[in-house]
Each structure stands twice: as C-alpha cells, then as structure tokens.
C-alpha cells in the first residue's frame, strides 16, 4: 500500500498528495461545469465558506473526529499489509457497545452514585465497550485471514452487510421501546456527551450550534497512541514487519497469524470509537445507518495521509472541510448536491490509491536531474 520510492521525502508526503488533490478538484470542477454551474464559485464556497465562521470550524472538527477514527482504522491495517474495507460495519456494530452500557449499567450507576460520578464512569465503560465490540467485528475477519486463509477484503465486505442486517434487526426488535414509531432506541441519558454549545451554556457563554464534542481530544489521543504503537513499541514493529514481508517476519521470530489478529482487533476497535462519538455525542440514541459512509471516507483519509497519524489528522481535517463545505454548497447552489463531496472522495481514492504510481516516472526523472 505504501509505495517504495526513490523520491525525496517531501515529494512523497507533500507534493504527490497535493498534485493528486489538485487533479481531483479539477475533475470535480469539470463535473460542476457539466451540470452548468461556475466551478470557481463552487470551489470558493466549498473551501472558503466554512473557514469564515466559528460554526464552520466547529463542524469541520466534528466531521474530522469521525474521519480520524476511521482513517486510523484503515491505516493500522495497512501497516500490517491488510486492507480493511470493513470500517463501515465495525463502526456500525460498535453502536451496540456504545449504547448498551449507557442504557443499562448507566441507570444502575446513577441510582447509587451522584450524577457527577456516574456519568464519567458510564462513559468510560461505553468507550471501552465500543472499542471492544468494533474490535471483535474486526478480529473475526482477522482470524479468518490468519487461520483459515480467507481473504480479508472479501470477508470484511461481507461483514459490512451482515452488520447492516444485524443492526437493523437489533434496533428494530430489541432496542426500540414498545409502541415507539421511529426505529431507534430510547435516549441514552445516563451517558450523555455534551457538545460545545451545551458546554458553553453551562459556563454562561453563547456558542454556535454544532455537534462538535470533546471526543475530538480522544481522536487526537488515538492518533498519538497509534503513532506510539507503530513506531515506538515492540508490537508496532512486529505489525510493520508482517506488513513489509510476512516470510521474513517469521524468521525474526514473529508469529504473523497472531499479529494479523491483533492488528485487526485494534483496527476494528478504532472504527468502533466512531460509534462512541456518534451514538453518545450526536444522536444520543441508537439509530439506523448513523455511520453514513465515514468508514469508506476513512480509506481516502488513510491514503491521503500516507497512513501516518499526523497525515491522517490533516487529511481528516481536509475531508471535514469538504463535508461541511459540501453542505454549505448545496444550500447556496441548489443544483449542486452535497454528494459532489463523494465524487471528490472517490477521485482522491482513485488517484492516491490506484493510480499512485502515475506521476512517479515523471517526478523521478525530474528530481534525478536536479540531484
């Protein structure tokens, strides 16, 4: 997944992503032209508008929170040479882990402890359970890959669909209170993550309406933890060794099957944290389809960020900007649907992932002449 290259480092991590991004924008601009709008006006709204308001910035960070989690999910697997397309399903199923403790343990804790104590404890349990449930949904294809030789791309795709069916059943039949029309669980009031506006109100400040929550700090912490894991720990070394060359790793005394399973557990767990954020911070209940493609955006984020946590945070901010800008764009120019952002994401995946070698010969020639 990560290309070996003879190019200077800044070209590899800076110039190539920038070039690919520009091409993606040019092509998206052509689409805008085809549907008869002004691409420059569209671009200035898409990238400019969100940056000029506090609310815009908050919403960017809100989207970025989700994309950091799913981007890290894809990247961790990349480093072990695995392509986890299952982030979508892992994040979805982890909703069970996020909501269940909040619904049941939360009430019990609230009965015996003061609110200021029971809420954080419940949230902590929810956090751990989100990670675990998402992780188990990732561990399973990891096990199938490691022990049974089933290809992880195929199994994670299938588990996405199984997760969708399972969640539809669980929310509809198990979590929906009797007599409620909407297909959703009851509100999770005992594990409630305040968003920025609610926090501001508690301190008497008036802040814009935004779904941004302090979970962004957990996302940044996760990014740091992934960096530490991959480049500063023994396990991370083993993960990268398996990713670089599985046969060589065996001779270094590494058990690839074990590493593959652990990596997939971590990968799925990171996707699972999205459920913690969405279910307890945004929806405050278990609803259908709350992942909304963020698992797939994670692929674009990981490719754009070159599978490095710093790159992923930056790429997540970029895609957060696009998501927020896309919404504003569809308000200002009615004929452009916000799905234009999906087109841009697809183009980024195409150029960063599948055609990443396209510029290489050209750039290599240029930089060889220089050096």
């Amino acid at each position: 997944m990560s290309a070996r290259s003879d190019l200077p480092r800044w070209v590899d991590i800076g110039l190539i992503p920038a070039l690919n991004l520009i091409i993606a924008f040019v092509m998206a601009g052509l689409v805008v032209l085809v549907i008869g709008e002004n691409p420059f006006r569209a671009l200035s709204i898409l990238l400019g508008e969100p940056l000029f308001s506090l609310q815009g910035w908050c919403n960017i960070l809100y989207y970025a929170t989700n994309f950091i989690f799913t981007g890290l999910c894809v990247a961790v697997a990349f480093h072990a040479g695995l392509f986890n397309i299952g982030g979508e399903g892992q994040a979805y199923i982890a909703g069970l882990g996020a909501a269940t403790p909040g619904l049941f343990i939360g009430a019990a804790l609230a009965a015996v402890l003061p609110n200021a104590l029971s809420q954080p404890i419940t949230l902590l349990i929810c956090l751990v359970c989100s990670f675990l449930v998402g992780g188990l949904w990732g561990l399973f294809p990891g096990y199938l890959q490691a022990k049974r030789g089933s290809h992880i791309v195929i199994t994670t795709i299938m588990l996405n669909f199984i997760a969708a069916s399972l969640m539809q059943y669980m929310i509809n039949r198990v979590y929906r209170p009797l007599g409620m029309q909407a297909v959703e669980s009851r509100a999770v009031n005992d594990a409630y993550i305040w968003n920025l506006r609610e926090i501001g109100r508690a301190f008497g400040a008036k802040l814009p309406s935004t779904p941004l929550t302090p979970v962004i700090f957990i996302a940044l912490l996760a990014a740091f933890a992934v960096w530490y894991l991959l480049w500063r720990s023994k396990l991370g070394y083993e993960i990268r060794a398996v990713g670089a060359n599985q046969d060589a790793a065996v001779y270094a005394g590494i058990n690839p099957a074990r590493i593959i399973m652990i990596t997939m557990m971590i990968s799925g767990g990171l996707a699972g944290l999205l459920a913690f954020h969405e279910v307890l911070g945004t929806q405050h209940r278990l609803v259908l389809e709350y992942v909304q493609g963020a698992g797939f955006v994670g692929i674009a984020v990981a490719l754009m960020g070159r599978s490095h946590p710093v790159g992923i945070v930056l790429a997540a901010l970029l895609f957060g900007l696009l998501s927020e800008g896309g919404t504003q764009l569809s308000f200002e120019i009615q004929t452009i649907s916000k799905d234009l952002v999906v087109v841009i994401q697809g183009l980024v995946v195409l150029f960063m992932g599948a055609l990443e070698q396209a510029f290489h010969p050209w750039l290599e020639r240029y930089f060889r002449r220089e050096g």
Partner: protein
Amino acid sequence: MDFVLLPEILSSTLRMSVPLILACLAGLWSERSGIVDIGLEGKMLVGAFVAACSASYFHSPWMGLFLAIVVCVLFALVHGYASINQRGNQVVSGVAINMLAAGLTVVIGNSWYKQGGRTPQLDQGSRFLPIDFPGHDALFEMNGIGPIAKIFLDHSILVYIALALVPLSAWALARTRFGLRLRAVGENPQAVDTAGISVARLRYQAVIIAGVLCGIAGAYLSTALQTSFVRDMSAGRGFLALTALIFANWRAWPALWACLLFGFLQAVANFMQGAHLFGVEIPVQVFNALPYIMTIVLLAGFIGKSVPPKASGTPYSKDR
C-alpha cells in the same frame, strides 16, 4: 410460508436473479483474467443511471441499454488502466469506482431532474416490458400450466439474454481459444507471456466484457425491473454478485445456481416481512444476511473450499 404465493415468489426470484447473474458473469470474466473487480456495484449503478436517462430522452429502452453499456465500458477501462497499466491496487481502484458512481449519479441526476437524484418515470414505450408473444394471455389463464408458464415466460427480453449468457460464458471460457488463454492469464500470466500472447490485451478484453455485462445489468435495473433510477438503486447487488461468484467457486454454471438462490432469498424477503417456519418467526434480515453468512462459512473452509484464480489481484510486470 404461504404456498399460494409460490408462483409469484418464483417469478420474482427470476427477476431478482437477473442483475445478479449479469454482474456475477462480469466478475467471472474479470477475475478469471486476474483482475479483481470490487467495482461491479458502481458500474451497475452508473449503468442504471445512464439507461434511465437515455431511455427517457430517446424514448427507447434500446438506446438506454446501448449507452449504459458504453458508459460502463468507459468505467471498466478506468479500472483496467489502473490495474493493468499502472499496476495499482485493484481493490482500491474498485472502491474508488464505487464512490465515484455513488456520487456522480446523484450529483448529475439531481441537477438535471431536480428530484433528489431520481430520474423521470419511464413510460411503457421506454421500458423493457415482458415479451408480448401471440396468445400469451390465453396461456397464462389456462388452468394448471398457466401459473407455471407465467413463472418462466412473463419476462422481458433482458431476462432471457442474461440466462443465455450463462451457457455462452461457460462455453467460451472452457472451449474457445480466447477463453482458455484468458483463464491462463488469470492463473499464470508469465506462461502466457512467454507463449507470445499479450497479457495486457487479454486482460483489457476481459475488463471490457465485464463492463458490457454490468451495463446490461444496470439497464435491467432501471428500465425493466423498475421504472426510473433512484439513488443507490443497485443496493449492494454488485457485492451480492461478487459473493455469488465466490460461492460458485469462479465457475459459470454454479454461478447461475448461486444467483438464483440469492435471488430467491431476496424475493422471499420482499414478499413476506418475516416468514414463519415450523411456527418460529424468521426475521426478514436473516434472508438479507444469509448469502453473506453462507459464503463466509464456505470461505472459512468449513464446508468445501473456494479457490480463486491464482493470479487474481496481482498486477503483471514482465521484469519479475
């Protein structure tokens, strides 16, 4: 289960299976040549969109079919260029095509028709209707054989094209020089190259065939099965077809049975919201998840074994 509905369910099974069969054959051709195609879903979606737009514009389902095929082949060529010339990651390329398809169809559809991505309703003349052969009303109303004839004969031409393509593909892959070479490329490209046959050319041919088949599948969705394009109308069928392909162990005839089985499950899920079997209620989600569960069990090697073409997913380069 309610047995009165059985003829209806079987007829629906055939209708639901057709897009699966076409996409599954597309995957078969592509993967047999060594190109993994995750992008069946996206190509089918694009095909459905283009077919609906052009059928409504030209008032002809055939124009819809033709342009759907043309555009799907273009998308297939993008995948081919990425996987053959650029030796890129084929899975990533497929994912990109799916995202592009999901985005483009809605963006363009929304700006053209302003109905949230939906295209205008097609009138009768712009759709593929069940074939109107002489005396079919009399036949279908006959006692006894009427309902049975209706299961098999009350369909549009695309259904029979899809069914005919199964033996054709099986024969071409097993008996023709082209098919044998194509399969060889999927197993051992070095050997084919050594014999002086172009690997890239064969793989491009396979990818184009896959594009054509996805185009037919898409056109079927929007101009035969339904009366317009709606956003995300392929609804996972491309992945279900991929699942069927694995379930069928990359062979044409078993692929037909797998698609019919999965089509049957879809038909049952549509007809009865939760069936009863031996007094126990089976939730509808079970039918939706069952193909994937069965295939995972198969992939895990607990029953039988599914073995992909040896070189599938790996780009070919001469200098190795």
